[in-house]
């Protein structure tokens, strides 16, 4: 009895794996890329979600458009550029490195550098004092 149960369970598992494998249509690659692109695009309605996460109607339509453009042979970067052309830098969840974002990108490194300089200076002073 036990063996039959185990046998049935393993058969079921093998079958479900097989089914999952057949569900991998040629579209799977497009789907994966669409998810990738969707994750880097901001849902302009909800603003702090990506279109991949959002259920807003506009995000649904944007996802559809991303998929269509990928199917038509656009690269991921081209699809993102297409959206950027329409919605501006705002639609990118990762801000591009450009003149108006230098402060955003480089302030942490500047602070690190300043801290390091301060640390070296004060430790030298402490050495000289002791």
């Amino acid at each position, binding site marked *: 009895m036990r063996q039959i149960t185990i046998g049935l369970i393993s058969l079921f598992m093998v079958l479900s794996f097989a089914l999952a494998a057949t569900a991998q249509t040629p579209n799977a690659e497009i789907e994966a890329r669409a998810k990738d692109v969707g994750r880097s695009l901001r849902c*302009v309605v909800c603003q702090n979600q990506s279109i991949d996460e959002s259920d807003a109607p506009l995000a649904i*339509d944007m996802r559809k458009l991303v998929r269509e453009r990928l199917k038509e042979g656009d690269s991921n970067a081209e699809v993102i550029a297409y959206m950027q052309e*329409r*919605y*501006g830098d705002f639609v990118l969840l990762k801000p591009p490195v450009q003149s108006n974002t230098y402060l955003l990108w480089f302030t942490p490194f500047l602070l690190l550098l300043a801290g390091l300089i301060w640390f070296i200076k004060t430790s030298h002073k402490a050495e000289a004092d002791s």
Partner: protein
Amino acid sequence: MRALLPLGIFLLIGLAFAVGLTKDPKLLPSELLNRPVPDFALTELYDETDILTQDMFDGKVSLINVFGSWCVACNVEHPVLMDIAKRNEVNLIGIDWRDERPKAKDWLAKRGNPYRKVIFDNESVLAIKLGVSGAPESFIIDKAGQVRYKHVGVITPKIWRNTLRPIIKTLEAD
């Protein structure tokens, strides 16, 4: 002097916030400014055989208004649009966005239809091309079919008088 350093940093951060937080992040600039209306081919709301394209804006100054029967704020804006239509001041075109035909027709039948033509865009085809993020949203198109102004949100009588109408008047004089 050293004691003033934290105060200086505080003031600097305060200044950055004062500028940054007063900007409304919902007001996205239109990437399309001074560029032609993107190509599209969509049906008219009432006449499904009428295929509307970007050519519909040639030769006259137009005001495109994105609306939908589901859009609450559009109810507030509607009387202003009716007033604009009554005075025949501009080629007023509607984009019925993410809507169903019967619902939209019903909505317009109840309140009156201010639009000369209504582009039916239930899949956000034109909306995404225009960079629309919500309704209502409006665009002023010049005689050459170029986007000249974008207004996000309700057109109030004041916004119409002080902002949109003057722009339309100058474009018409061109």
